[in-house]
């Protein structure tokens, strides 16, 4: 293994060299998101934004990784992972129960769509190529599972004919070597067809009408040393969104029609503006498949513990690699205490200012007397008192803004104050204090997890930025603990490195950046009103689902270039995970598509990190924002 100085820099499953390292770094929290029957037959769609952890999940089930897991099962680093996989039925105490073949869809398949073949021929070649790769992968999987060598031991495998099928250009029975040669020939034929500089007419192997490989696997047609090799097969397709639309439709149709016994997982990027077609009437019914949206599942309180575990595993690897030159745990490097002595003076000053302001405000209004008195008696740390006073200020602002004021102006009771003093108002108070007095807000492990925006890769990048600094401190023999202010500065800097150069990195990047800026400014305006009307704040916008349909309607887009440009821009923003889309969100009798800002943008616009606060707007207003930027309307400034 090469020396890994900062293991947080190994962001993708592909960048991790060995299966053992992969297992040591794998955050098994994602397994909790899978349904119990994930391995028992029905096709399973796994959807997430890029970096959501789909590829890592698929890689976990590959034969070599599971074999490694069996070998390491006594090791503390993988004990819980082993238990979870056992719960899913992927492994038992003594054996691996599932054999998987992983097919990355980005490889070769999309290029096949560009050759210009007739649709029927293109589909047959697509299925032939998938068959060749699945069968080759299955042979490899069996040898790995039995501790044999690929390709040296291929001759111990044989393929017998399925009851009612034939495979073009392959004669049954045949041994593994012949099967490998056949698969190579099919692949080579398709490769030549794609790569040739001359006309591809008439070139290429004969195609297939169905996924013959699944039939062969279902019928246990592969033999090892003359005996049928019985296995529970899992075929996983990664990056399905890379296929051409016709290819994706063809593959889904075949997978559903064949109703294979083998389990098929289809991992794809969630694209809120195009994924619907998969679930259109006639394509697949709910009974035929399962869908897991990783972000939606993470939101159920599972993300933070999962990523904390990932961070600890990476920090431990750094310590194993660098010894005393690296911290051996991640959490202790992230200081999260604003009650520390270093903050007392600043907190006291802020408290004096806020308290005085509230007292002056309440002095002329007798109905707040009890509220103010109750705050004077509040106990706890200075910071707690400060937050309590700032919360009161927000609540008084709300009370004053009410249109139907109580004419009698009777004193408001402390019970009423307790009812109103909820966590969301306190969260808004914290945010306001950070803006007014310069307290850090974006620091600590929980906020770091929130900044991950339910995206594992994003979390690892941010945590890696912090860990880099801790590593440097450890090398200099200084404390690796990062002060809250320093954490905030590093995390704010992530916007500059990941978002600011969007025009270069993404299609329509300049337009995306303008729209994101408009949304960010709007959210800031709405959030930072004195009465915190949507506490803790607004971090997203929404359009009606009917308006979303217009963004998907080719006829409408052809008629309205501004709408087409907006749809294209929005597609890019969602594809790059800068906007987090939730479709079919029901509120006030309407259905909305909510577009939350990626949490990475929240520090730039001084926004809280909680999800839930959004404002709906007509599509035409968003189109104007995208074209001209955001201009606050009177109603927004006078909330």
């Amino acid at each position, binding site marked *: 293994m090469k020396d890994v100085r900062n293991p947080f820099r190994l962001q993708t499953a592909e960048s991790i060299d060995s299966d053992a390292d992969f297992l040591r770094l794998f955050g098994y929290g994602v397994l909790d998101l899978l349904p119990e029957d994930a391995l028992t037959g029905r096709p399973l769609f796994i959807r997430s934004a890029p970096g959501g952890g789909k590829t890592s999940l698929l890689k976990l089930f590959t034969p070599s990784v599971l074999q490694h897991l069996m070998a390491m099962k006594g090791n503390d680093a993988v004990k819980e992972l082993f238990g979870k996989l056992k719960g899913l039925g992927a492994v038992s105490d003594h054996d691996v129960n599932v054999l998987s073949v992983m097919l990355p869809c980005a490889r070769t398949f999309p290029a096949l769509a560009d050759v210009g073949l007739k649709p029927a021929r293109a589909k047959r070649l697509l299925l032939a190529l998938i068959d060749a790769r699945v069968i*080759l992968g299955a042979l490899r999987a069996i040898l790995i599972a039995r501790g044999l060598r690929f390709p040296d031991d291929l001759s111990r495998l044989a393929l017998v004919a399925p009851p009612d099928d034939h495979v073009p250009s392959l004669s049954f029975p045949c041994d593994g070597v012949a099967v490998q040669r056949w*698969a190579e020939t099919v692949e080579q034929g398709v490769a030549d067809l794609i790569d040739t500089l001359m006309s591809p007419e008439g070139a290429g192997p004969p195609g297939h009408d169905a996924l013959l490989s699944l039939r062969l696997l279902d019928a246990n047609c592969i033999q090892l040393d003359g005996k049928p090799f019985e296995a529970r097969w899992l075929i996983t397709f990664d990056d399905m969104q890379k296929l051409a639309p016709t290819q994706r439709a063809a593959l889904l149709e075949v997978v559903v029609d064949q109703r294979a016994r083998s389990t098929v997982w289809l991992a794809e990027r969630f694209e809120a503006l195009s994924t619907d077609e998969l679930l259109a009437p006639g394509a697949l019914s709910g009974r035929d498949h399962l869908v897991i949206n990783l972000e939606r599942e993470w939101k159920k309180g599972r993300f933070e513990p999962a990523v904390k575990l990932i961070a600890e595993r990476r920090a431990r690897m750094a310590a194993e690699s660098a010894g005393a030159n690296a911290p051996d745990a991640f959490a202790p490097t992230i200081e999260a205490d604003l009650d520390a002595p270093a903050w007392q003076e600043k907190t006291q000053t802020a408290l004096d200012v806020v308290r005085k302001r509230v007292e002056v405000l309440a002095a002329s209004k007798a109905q707040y007397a009890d509220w103010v008195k109750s705050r004077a008696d509040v106990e706890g740390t200075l910071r707690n008192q400060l937050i309590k006073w700032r919360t009161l200020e927000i609540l008084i602002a709300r009370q004053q803004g009410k249109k139907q004021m109580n004419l009698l102006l009777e004193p408001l009771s402390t019970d009423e104050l307790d009812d109103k003093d909820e966590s969301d108002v306190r969260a808004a108070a914290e945010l306001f204090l950070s803006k007014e007095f310069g307290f850090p807000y974006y620091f600590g492990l929980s906020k770091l997890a929130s900044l991950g925006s339910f995206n594992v890769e994003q979390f690892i990048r941010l945590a890696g930025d912090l860990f880099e600094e801790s590593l440097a401190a450890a090398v200099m023999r200084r404390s690796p603990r990062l002060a809250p202010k320093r954490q905030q500065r590093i995390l704010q800097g992530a916007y500059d490195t990941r978002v600011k150069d969007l*025009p270069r990195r993404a299609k329509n990047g300049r337009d995306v950046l303008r729209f994101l800026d408009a949304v960010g400014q709007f959210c800031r305006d709405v959030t930072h009103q004195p009465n915190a009307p949507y506490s803790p704040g607004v971090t997203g916008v929404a359009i009606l689902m009917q308006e979303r349909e217009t963004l998907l309607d080719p006829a409408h887009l052809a008629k309205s270039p501004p709408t087409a440009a907006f749809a294209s821009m929005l597609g890019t923003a969602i594809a790059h995970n800068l906007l987090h889309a939730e479709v079919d969100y029901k509120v006030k009798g309407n259905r909305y598509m909510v577009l939350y800002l990626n949490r990475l943008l929240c520090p730039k616009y001084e926004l809280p990190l909680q999800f839930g606060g959004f404002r709906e707007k007509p599509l035409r207003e968003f189109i104007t924002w995208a074209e001209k930027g955001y201009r606050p309307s009177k109603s927004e400034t006078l909330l």
Partner: protein
Amino acid sequence: MSPDSLRWRDYFLRDGEGFDEFWKLFLAERKRDLLFVIGHGFDARMCDGIERVLSLGGEGTRDVALIAFDEGAESPSQTYLAQRKANGERLEKLLQGRGKIGHRDIKMFSDGNRRVGARSIAQEFASSAEFRSYTDVVVDISALPRSLYMPLLAKLLALFDGEAKDGEKRNLHVIVSHSPAIDGAIVEEGLEESASYLFGFAAAALESESTSGQPKIWIPVLGKRQPAQLERINQFVMPDEICPLLPSPAQDPREGDSIMIEYRELLFDQLRVEPRNIIYAAESNPFEVYRQLMRSILHYDRALKPLGGCKVALSAMSSKLASMGVLLAAYELGRRDPKVTVGVAHVESQGYRVESTGTVPSTTLFTMWLSGECYAA
């Protein structure tokens, strides 16, 4: 395999005054019918090459195949339509009374909105019959994007190599108006989400499952300000070994150091590149880049042969001159016997933005003779 067996071991390259001297003598030697293949872009250097060649006299036809490529309504290049139009008018003036301009429109996107420009331009020149009336084909790559001129040149080389077997000796020249300052000011915008292998070289062959056990070597020819491209190509290629190629000697002696500093985190922290893997080649000599690439690739191929061989991905992220070295190496290795699987990994972009350079940068004309008379045995 010895260096002697390299196709372009002996090469023909001239620049600056040498450019003028060569073309003057070459055109004066006898009547020559020239077809210029020129990209119709916004780059002010588009007509520099043809203007100079036309000014150097000689008899014979002087026609142009003008390549038009529309990168889409949302392309940032659309900002420079006026410059593009001016380039077209300049070309028309130059050709007045000298030759014809044939327009070739390249389809850049498929009906499914996938990028097909590389395949389209190769298909545009279907057979060598199109060139029968010309003794020389001169491709000016100054205003053509990499994703078009690399497959175009691969196709022309393949066509002319096929002709050579029948005894034909059509000359293929490449000219480019080179300026590191202008190249640095033209910035790619709107990169595609993921990289792909360029059509015209091994592409599907590199992704074959049956050879997935073979180690994959990636040689990126590095230039400045390409971190997103570098990252995306790495994610796409998933190499087992990385050998970055740096410019040295270069006009700026610290160019290589600057590049290393710019990509330090990616190359060393994330990709854990071995410093001993770094290759150096002269910045302004494409044949030197080609030679260094060939040496490294053939070395890997020889060393890994007992284990089943290797696959190689090249990437041109530097100047157009250096990218010619990539093109030549990938083309030759794909046609050797036994051939080496070499592809060119690349990230397409939506278009370009031109940053202000303050002053008017100087340009140098380069001419490369790739096939034809001078290589005839």
